[in-house]
């Protein structure tokens, strides 16, 4: 599903250049729940942003479903993100002016009929355990609930891949556990492909596979 070849990312120029990714090669199959792990500064968030088309690599290629997504125009990338990818960010990323329900269906407004996306958004919120919070605003629910709403939003357009960038980093242990259980459930019951960046060692047991990064490269023999 995702095929990455010789991916490089350099920030800055010449003497001030920082090589965040130094030639990443990896494959992720449909239905996998993959964690990208590594020490701080290993390049895991940079990799996730590039895989999720939020940033551009300096060189290399990314094929998603055999499509070279780095050749897409800005408009095509936006469309691709909207239809094929879902995101859960590290910090709460809901729009404060909208209810939980509205936040979830916003990405679907461009794509579907109002009845369709409202119904699906409500259904997703029930799946993530927020069936009673549809009309609440983000500042009226807890951090864990906001993150669950973010997951529901990420799923509204039935994405092929769900990206999560340290989704539990801002949460307490109990809320973090709920989120990880939810990811597992989505992966197991719905076959959702999930790529998650995390720095929590214990998250390893929830995923199918871990891709370890070290100094901008895939670490094939991690010693953690």
């Amino acid at each position, binding site marked *: 599903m995702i095929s990455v070849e010789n991916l490089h990312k350099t920030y800055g120029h010449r003497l001030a250049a920082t090589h965040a990714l130094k030639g990443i090669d990896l494959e992720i199959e449909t239905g996998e729940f993959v964690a990208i792990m590594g020490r701080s500064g290993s390049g895991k968030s940079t990799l996730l*942003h590039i895989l*999720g088309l*939020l*940033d551009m690599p300096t060189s290399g290629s990314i094929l998603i479903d055999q499509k070279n997504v780095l050749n897409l125009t*800005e*408009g095509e990338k*936006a*469309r*691709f*993100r*909207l*239809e094929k*990818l*879902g*995101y859960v*960010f590290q910090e709460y*990323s809901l*729009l*404060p*002016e*909208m209810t939980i329900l*509205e936040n979830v269906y*916003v*990405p679907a*407004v*461009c*794509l579907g009929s109002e009845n369709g996306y409202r119904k699906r958004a409500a259904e997703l919120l029930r799946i993530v355990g927020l069936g009673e919070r549809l009309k609440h*605003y983000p500042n009226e629910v807890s951090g864990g609930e906001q993150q669950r709403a973010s997951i529901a*939003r*990420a799923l509204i*357009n039935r994405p092929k891949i769900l990206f999560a960038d340290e989704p539990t980093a801002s949460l307490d242990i109990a809320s973090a556990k709920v989120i990880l259980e939810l990811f597992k459930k989505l992966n197991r019951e719905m076959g959702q492909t999930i790529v998650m960046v995390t720095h929590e060692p214990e998250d390893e047991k929830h995923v199918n596979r871990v891709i370890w990064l070290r100094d901008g490269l895939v670490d094939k023999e991690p010693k953690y």
Partner: protein
Amino acid sequence: MGNLKLALFLAFKSIIKGNRWALVLIILVMSLSFANLLLTPSILWGVTNTLNRQQIDTLYGNIVIDPPPTEHYLSRASLIEKKIEQIPGVTGVSAHLNSSAFIEYQWKEKDSPSDKGESGTWSVIGIDPTREIDVTTIHEHIIQGSYLDSNDRDEIVLGVEIAGGDRAQTAEFLRLQGVRIGDEVRLTDPNGVQREYRVKGIFQAKEMTQADRLAFVTKTEMASVMGRTVYGDRASRILVRTGQGVTESQLIQEIRSLGIDAEVRSWSEYGGAMGGIVSSFDVIASLIGTIGLVVAGIVMFIVIYINVINKKRQIGILRAIGIKRNVIVGSYLTQAIFYAILGIVFGGLLFGYGIQPYFELHPLDLPLGEVSLTVRALTISSAILGILTAAVLAGLIPVISITRQRIIQAIWGN
């Protein structure tokens, strides 16, 4: 269609649930800017309007009929008056017999014939008072005594700048030294005819010092002074007053079509130096209006810019979840237009129901006269266009700039 719907939805939610104080502040700035854009030019247009009105009221009426270039007088003046009176839209016609005269006051106290004493040369106009009151407003500006009657022969009405006294504005040596009602003045016509008149009234058009340097006698009296050359129903000039809403140019065409051997012109062609002042005010009004618009634009830009910058992270998140750039720009554009429309509405209400009525009740008392606001359609449309343009630019520039940033940068708030 979906994109438009989403843009409107985002804008709606942002307005309804966004920061109330920011919304109030933006609309307040827009409203005050709009009212200011109307106010400043309207005061200046009010000044020019006052100057123009004064020229019409005290000197020219709306239309001026002069003899042809080869003649000094219009013949059969009363017939012309009657013909013009028949034209719909004409509310007054008055023939003038103009001359200049050497006017002396207290001449009996002179030591010798070479003693100039209190004297000077001024324009003297012969009028039919009953007709004149339908054309000019001099009769409304009598400050002492009374206006002329049709049968008056040895009485004269003087402008305050001839009579002198405390209320005159011109230098003392250019006026008589405080003529009073009942005093006598002696007029010497260019043809040498000398007559004495009792001062019946003194007027002050206030704003129009040009009019205050005129003296009026009856037309019959003036004709008798001027002698045989003008006897026989002649006039130096005929002034025509039109009703409200009558187009002067159209009326001029109608008067010309009567076949009168005369030059027919609008009052504005006689503006002279006053016309220059009016033109200067026009330029100043346009200049101040433009500056006001730029200042309003900058203020609105700053307020909206800060509002948009505060939503940088939200814009980044919207882009990250796949919302197209033009949808986000469209949403902020919608908000900017909404702010501008509310600003125009509230600013318009403030101006129409607050500022304008206030100026009508308390006009500015300037040396040139009482000035109230004159609101032109062009001023209103320019202000509306200006506010909309400034709001659109203020809304678009920051959001375009943010949506061109890397998504990650926007989300991080860099």
